[in-house]
């Protein structure tokens, strides 16, 4: 084991874990205030539910020795996940690092179905999805016996496993759930853009763990992944602001936050495979399809509420393909891409994306239909109108002043007598 690698991987794991609260703010700021807690909770519960399930089963399905398509049960209930080395770091740390990826991937999907999905249905869905979709695809790409891994698909930090995967699941979920009740008749505006910016800032910060941590050690490869993770979003941000300027004459803050995230998504599969200068190009190029994807989506009936498809699906796909273009063995020691004389890599990348699209799309659809049999997927329309915070969580995000509030103690004398009798129905 290598202590410097341990140090860096401890930090990286913490950084990736922080990305889920960051996502809660990125998403939570973009919804209406009456649904803000509900949206944030969709990320936060993933920390619990997916975190625990990953340890109990998901990790084993993804990384225990198994077949080409799924891992085995050797590590179920964390059996054999101990302080011995896995690579240069303790096995248990590797498990944690991978767990943070599972957590955020599930949370990413929520962006497509916020403001209408019943919370209990969501909980059941992400539990099943982690085990049935995330773990297998993770196995394909990153386990040494996974079929895409053995085939040579490049995915440094999860362009297909995390982003294409979450993007297509989001697409399917948005279709199955259907649009919000006033979709396209009313504009849904972000209730707190600073929260979205905070989320974007923290996501970028955490993404250094995501990408540079995927080198699994404090190595020059990590430094390369770090540099590309700094430069690609910077370039995407610049291009995004220019597109905004051309289209509306104004550079928007929501746009800036989105541009950063798209740049981060796009560089994810490529992070340790391409040169820093290619990262600037990749980030800049990747901004364009996501930008127009998002503009186009807004005119369709597809209520992918927070544009997970355009940001993660499109961004991840473009990034995965461009990895096959810009890869440079001289930098990564792994493989060259199209531009460096190896056009075949682009084909492999396309297959990896295609397989992910197909598998994730189909299984996500099936799982949602299954969950829908157990629990209705959508909240009732009146609850949607009143807001998911109050109806699903019995809470409001913001309160000012000292409202007229009645303290109810269950089956006890109530503190505020007059209103209490009202509460008890004894109105006259």
């Amino acid at each position: 084991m290598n202590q410097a690698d341990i140090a860096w991987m401890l930090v990286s794991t913490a950084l990736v874990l922080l990305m889920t609260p960051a996502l809660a703010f990125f998403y939570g700021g973009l919804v209406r205030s009456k649904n803000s807690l509900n949206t944030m909770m969709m990320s936060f519960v993933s920390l619990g539910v997916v975190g625990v399930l990953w340890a109990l089963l998901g990790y084993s399905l993804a990384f225990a020795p198994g077949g080409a398509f799924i891992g085995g049960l050797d590590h179920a209930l964390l059996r054999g996940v101990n302080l011995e080395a896995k690579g240069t770091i303790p096995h248990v740390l590797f498990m944690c690092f991978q767990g943070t990826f599972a957590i955020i991937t599930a949370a990413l999907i929520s962006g497509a179905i916020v403001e209408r999905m019943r919370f209990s249905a969501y909980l059941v869905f992400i539990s099943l999805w982690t085990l049935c979709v995330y773990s297998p695809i993770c196995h394909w790409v990153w386990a040494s016996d996974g079929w895409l891994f053995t085939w040579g698909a490049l995915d440094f930090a999860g362009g297909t496993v995390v982003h294409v995967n979450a993007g297509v699941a989001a697409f399917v979920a948005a279709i199955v759930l259907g649009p919000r009740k006033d979709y396209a008749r009313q504009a849904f505006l972000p209730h707190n853009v600073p929260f979205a910016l905070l989320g974007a800032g923290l996501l970028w910060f955490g993404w250094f763990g995501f990408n540079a941590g995927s080198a699994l050690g404090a190595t020059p490869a990590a430094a390369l992944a770090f540099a590309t993770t700094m430069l690609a979003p910077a370039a995407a941000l610049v291009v995004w602001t220019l597109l905004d300027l051309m289209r509306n004459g104004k550079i928007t803050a929501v746009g800036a936050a989105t541009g950063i995230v798209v740049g981060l998504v796009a560089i994810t599969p490529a992070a340790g495979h391409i040169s820093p200068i290619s990262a600037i190009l990749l980030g800049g190029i990747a901004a364009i399809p996501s930008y127009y994807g998002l503009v186009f989506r807004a005119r369709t009936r597809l209520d992918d509420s927070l544009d997970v498809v355009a940001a993660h699906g499109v961004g991840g796909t473009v990034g995965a393909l461009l990895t096959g273009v810009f890869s440079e063995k001289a930098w990564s020691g792994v493989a060259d891409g199209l531009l460096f004389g190896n056009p075949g890599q682009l084909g492999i990348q396309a297959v990896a994306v295609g397989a992910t699209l197909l598998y994730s799309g189909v299984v996500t659809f099936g799982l949602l239909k299954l969950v829908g049999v157990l629990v209705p997927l959508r909240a009732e329309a009146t609850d949607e109108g009143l807001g998911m915070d109050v109806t699903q969580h019995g809470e409001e995000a913001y309160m000012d002043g000292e409202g007229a509030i009645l303290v109810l103690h269950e089956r006890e004398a109530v503190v505020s007598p007059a209103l209490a009798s009202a509460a008890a129905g004894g109105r006259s």
Partner: protein
Amino acid sequence: MKLVVAIFRSERLSAVLEELYRADVQGLSISRVQGHGGEREQVETYRGTTVKMELSEKSRLEICVSNHFVDPTVKAILKAARTGAVGDGKIFVLPVEKIYRIRTGEEDQAAVTPVGVPSRS
């Protein structure tokens, strides 16, 4: 001249504004209030304290109109704000003695006639 004050569900606001526009009502002011009536009450729980929210968010419109405009205004609101469930809200019509347009100092009728639109009142 009258002041029409309407208190209704916030989710109907867009619809009400559209309907008022159709009725040619141009000037109005909106605020948010918390209403207490016969509506469904929400129970919320914060760390072991269960509270009953007796108040629900409503929108409040204030529209000053000349007399013969009162009726179309009220009708427009009644039409667009109604959902039929308890909690739809109320409209009050108050007498107004004087209106001024701050920009010009114009008074009364003139003060509530949209600019550049031939007065129909």
